[in-house]
């Protein structure tokens, strides 16, 4: 069957790329003229669709799952451009299908924003879903975290094959109780690492607060992260523990590696490919962070780390994963729509770990909110400038002899990368 919509959509995609336009416009066009396009195309895939959702870590986890499956010889379609809305998926499909609308892939692995995933799964029920976590993020969009948990529950309920859940996040783990169709598998953490991952109910805690009520008996997990070293990690599965080198940094990224491994094992285990544990691990050890998520660049011959922070748990984990000692530190807080407008979240982060060395530079539209926050945690602040370009220049000029670290919200990160690309090599995002 020849459909007119695909060539037209591809044409729009070319034109909008030539104009440097957004990645979703061609998706919008094809959705309008051919609403069945996405569903029809994805339903032809022999191993169906896997959806990755949750508050934190979707992009890097999706990247990991794709690379793990590719290591097993599967052809994987994914929405790489970070356009994690339905239209973005349609647009990415247009780039990959041939002119007759055929997609040459075994499986699709899609990162979907929680709210948009709900619409997506109503149209395309996934065979697999991986639900990472529910944390305070963009409450100005979703209202309440219990509501976000309901969105994830809906994704799980539409899943036909296997649902992979985070055993350590109570709001995610509880989803299992509501399911009677799909298989459920968990990824988990060693008890010794739990304290690095305050779940959302523990976030409120000020110093010295009592621990919340004990959790009930945990179900067994398919993959458990047992230990995180400086450049390696231990994973337990199939009754044994293996140590593997890791290119990813930050405990939270490596916990998401356990999530990706669980999903990849489920997909391979259900007949998509014979899972070869050795090549899976090799692939895992080679995964590099996704765009802007914990990148390390080089400026004046010394490392400059960009750490994306977009909610209190992410900021806390960032501070824990990247100790301040010996580094010059800058924090860039914007409050554009993509960052979240409410500054309350800064008050749920504990900044005491920065007290010894202080913070050299603050910037972003809410730089003074950050300064105020640090004042109340008794952290010394060097300079404050709401304009990002001059603040970044001053930060780099003031610390030529030190490695540097910048904690930044999403749109601040984009601005910082733009500035940095003038003085060093920065990966270009397509």
């Amino acid at each position, binding site marked *: 069957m020849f459909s007119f919509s695909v060539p037209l959509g591809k044409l729009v995609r070319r034109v909008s790329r030539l104009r440097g336009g957004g990645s979703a416009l061609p998706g919008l066009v094809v959705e309008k003229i051919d609403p069945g396009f996405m569903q029809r195309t994805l339903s032809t895939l022999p191993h169906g669709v896997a959806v990755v959702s949750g508050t934190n870590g979707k992009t890097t986890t999706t990247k990991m799952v794709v690379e793990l499956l590719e290591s097993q010889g599967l052809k994987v379609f994914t929405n790489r451009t970070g356009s994690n809305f339905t239209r973005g998926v349609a647009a990415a499909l247009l780039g990959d299908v041939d002119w007759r609308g055929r997609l040459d892939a075994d499986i699709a692995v899609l990162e979907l924003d929680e709210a948009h995933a709900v619409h997506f799964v109503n149209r395309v029920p996934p065979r697999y879903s991986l639900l990472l976590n529910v944390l*305070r993020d963009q*409450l*100005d969009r979703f*209202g*309440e*975290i*219990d509501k976000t948990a309901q969105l994830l529950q809906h994704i799980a309920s539409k899943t036909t094959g296997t649902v992979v859940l985070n055993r350590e996040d109570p709001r995610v783990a509880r989803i299992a109780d509501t399911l009677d169709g799909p298989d459920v598998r968990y990824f988990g953490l060693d008890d010794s690492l739990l304290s690095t991952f305050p779940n959302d*109910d523990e976030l*409120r*805690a*000020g110093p010295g*607060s*009592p621990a*919340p009520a004990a959790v009930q008996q945990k179900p067994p997990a398919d993959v458990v992260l047992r230990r995180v070293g400086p450049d390696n990690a231990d994973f337990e599965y199939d009754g044994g523990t293996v140590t593997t080198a890791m290119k990813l940094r930050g405990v939270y990224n490596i916990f998401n590696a356990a999530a990706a491994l669980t999903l990849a094992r489920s997909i391979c285990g259900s007949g998509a490919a014979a899972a070869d544990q050795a090549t899976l691990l090799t692939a895992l050890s080679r995964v590099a962070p996704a765009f802007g998520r914990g990148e390390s660049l080089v400026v004046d011959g010394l490392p400059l780390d960009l750490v994306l922070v977009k909610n209190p748990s992410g900021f806390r984990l960032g501070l824990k994963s990247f100790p301040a000692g010996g580094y010059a530190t800058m924090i860039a807080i914007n*409050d554009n729509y993509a960052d979240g*407008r*409410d*500054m*309350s*979240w*800064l*008050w*749920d982060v504990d900044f005491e770990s920065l007290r010894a060395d202080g913070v050299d530079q603050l910037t972003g*539209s*809410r*730089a*003074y*909110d950050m*300064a*105020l*926050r640090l*004042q*109340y*945690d008794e952290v010394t602040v060097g300079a*404050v400038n*709401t304009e990002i370009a001059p603040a970044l220049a001053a930060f780099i000029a003031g610390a030529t002899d030190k490695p540097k670290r910048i904690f930044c919200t999403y749109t601040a990160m984009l601005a910082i990368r733009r500035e940095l690309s003038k003085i060093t090599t920065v990966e270009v995002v397509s």
Partner: protein
Amino acid sequence: MTPGTSGSKGTIRVLQLYPRDMNIYGDWGNALVLQQRLKWHGYAPELLEYNVGDEFPDEVDIIVGGGGQDSGQLVIQDDLQSRAETLRGLAEDGTPMLLICGTYQLFGRFFKTRTGSVIPGIGVLDVETHGTDERLIGNVKITTAEFGEVLGYENHSGQTTLGPGVEPLGTVPKGTGNNSSDGQEGARYRNIVASYLHGSLLPKNPAIADFLIRAAVERKYGSFTPGDPDDRYAVLAREHAARRPR
């Protein structure tokens, strides 16, 4: 009561009400600001917590309560009713309180949900709240007689109406406030400040923090001699916040 030792002008006990279940977004900031400003004014802060099932502490000088999700409000509801008498007594006696969002609603007469079920409040404040489908979200600026311009961020679907027993905290030139019809935000009663504003509220509105501190100290020690907190960042953060879009 005699002032405390170790060079401070006295001890002030700040009680966080239900921090485990009623703490949706940045409510810790309000407790932290009271703790630090008490020190900067020369007083020794003592931070206490009260959660469901705890023993209610004696000698409470300031109470702070935060926002809650619907689920959090359900968890604390029975326990709160069992403490209603104590809390009403403290309120009538002039104990300063900061009640944000969910706690503000539950200190009123009732909360009627969208489906029509009525959750009784503890009636400290003469206000009533009705659940709606509309979520009121965004930056807010209010004009108040006592504290000047107050800045914050609202995120709620309950709409609150004031009765004759309370005064509004202020009127709303930017944002929505208590409800989408009368242009008022928050409530004032004795030494209670109730508001929908997060942000957190106290860091960028030190005048409200100092009002609560002054009221607590005067009530306990008779008179308040302020210190000299450095509010330069607060002033600048307010200037920038006031210019941000809704």
